[in-house]
């Protein structure tokens, strides 16, 4: 096949854009693929750490997807997991250091969970399922898309947990004092991890109700 007949696919073709939009809803890493639940429970008590966590995951996932995709033809099948882990670990350490340097407070709140991005199932899942078999650009988009889908759920959970649990959003008090004077109280259970799981459950419930074809037979 000559170079003229084979047209290059445009960077933002419909197929490529699907890689970004699909994980937001129909192929969401948390609610549909059920990956990365653990960190969704751990860092969503407040909005700020949830957003920082999402950005960190996005950087790590996008870059390691590209790197692994570039290496994919040179990686021996039998040691591919080790190679993937080396790539992820390098990225995680870089991100962790950047967070410590620039947003120390939040880095302290996130504590071990940034380090634990290494074990976040979304990363291994996407590297194995996508980056190992696709070119760098689609792999990059896939990384961005999945991290966005992950971040979207994290932000939704964190929004409700912070609003109902602490009465704040981004640490600003949004529930007026008059409510408290009337006897309103913050819900202490929302701060505890079980409520994050239940919130994920409710999101899954609503999502499957709206997209009937997601319901497992």
């Amino acid at each position, binding site marked *: 096949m000559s170079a003229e007949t084979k047209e290059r696919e445009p960077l933002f073709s419909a197929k490529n854009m699907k890689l970004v939009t699909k994980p937001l809803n129909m192929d969401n890493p948390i609610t549909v693929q059920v990956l990365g639940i653990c960190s969704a429970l751990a860092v969503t008590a407040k909005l700020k750490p949830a957003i920082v966590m999402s950005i960190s995951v996005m950087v790590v996932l996008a870059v390691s997807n590209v790197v692994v995709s570039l290496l994919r033809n040179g990686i021996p099948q039998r040691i591919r997991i080790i190679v993937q882990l080396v790539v992820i670990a390098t990225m995680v350490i870089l991100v962790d250091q950047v967070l410590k340097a620039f947003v120390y407070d939040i880095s302290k709140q996130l504590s071990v969970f940034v380090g634990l991005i290494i074990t976040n199932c979304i990363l291994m899942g996407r590297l194995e399922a996508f980056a190992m078999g696709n070119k760098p650009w689609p792999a990059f988009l896939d990384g961005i898309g999945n991290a966005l889908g992950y971040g979207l759920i994290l932000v939704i959970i964190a929004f409700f947990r912070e609003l109902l649990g602490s009465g704040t959003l981004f640490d600003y008090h949004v529930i007026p004092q008059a409510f408290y004077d009337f*006897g309103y*109280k913050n*819900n*202490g*259970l*929302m701060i*505890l991890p079980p409520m994050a799981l*239940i919130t994920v*459950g409710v999101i899954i*419930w609503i999502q499957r109700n709206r997209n009937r074809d997601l319901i497992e037979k």
Partner: protein
Amino acid sequence: MKALRKFIDKQKPHFQKGGKFHWLESTFDGFETFLFVPNTVTTKGAHIRDSIDMKRTMIVVVLATLPALIFGMWNVGYQHFLSLGETTDFWQNIGYGALKVVPIIVVSYAVGLGIEFYFAQIKGHEINEGYLVTGMLIPLIVPPDIPLWILAVAVAFAVIFGKEVFGGTGMNVVNPALVARAFLFFAYPGDMSGDKVWIAEKADTFSGATPLGNALVGNFNHFHSFSDMFMGFIPGSVGETSTLMILIGAVILLYTGIASWRVMVSVFAGGLVMGLLFNWWGANEYMELPAYYHLVMGGFAFGAVFMATDPVTSAQTARGKYIYGFLVGVMAVLIRVFNPAYPEGMMLAILLMNVFAPLIDHYVIESNIKKRLKRLKVAVNS
């Protein structure tokens, strides 16, 4: 009665398919079967049926809770006036108690049944009767001063996440009434624990600590006497204080055969054995507390009679029931004595064992199968 029957029959077509209120079919059916035994007849095969069905079963349980409820109302008033230092007669006490407790019952039923009706309607099911009991148990296990909106939130949470997501009555893994209480306990600890909440509108100078609260902080000097705790003249949740009244309920449940005596007896046995074990160990003053005290303090008796025996969430096999009940008793006392954050262990013990009940059943059945196989082999070989 006949006039009522006629009236219902006349209204029926409106609510069936094609009628103008057909979207309320489940609701109508719920009310009709509440008033009359349904006339559904089995057409195929032989069935032995007696007159008891789900609604009748549930009503008996509600009746069994009435002694505890009425005593609870009286005690709410009694404790309130005691803390103020006033002497009052029976009717003043019960009047004050009713003012506190009746709104709790109304909110519990209104919110819970509202959600039940809603779910039945959108699913097109008949209305589940299970909430009749849950709605009665919830007011009995909350403090008398519980803010009503908080109670409403807890009831909604319990019915939706404790029951409906699993598929409604009969499918739930954990006891919905206890889910409501656990929700209150963890979400609004200020209204569910401590020394302040157990007496309605208590005077500030009066110590409102329950026996469990006192025991936990090692305050054994002004401890309530055993007879006070047995009769129920102590602060606490509405229906849990009087072991005597709960035992009357237990007699009703056992006589009608609705609750399992295996569970009840083994819960008390478990608590007693664990208490005796602590007596023997005796490392601190709480451990030296006589073992039988544990059975009348806090919600132990109430949990044993009304919560642990829930036929849906307890173990189903006969041997499983002994294991399940015994472990509930053991865990409850264990949590009380060892965990400084939770003065009352009964709620957590029952919830924990609810989760384990299917596993217990599984192993009981497995071992039974193994035993029978062995017997078969012996029979074949000989």
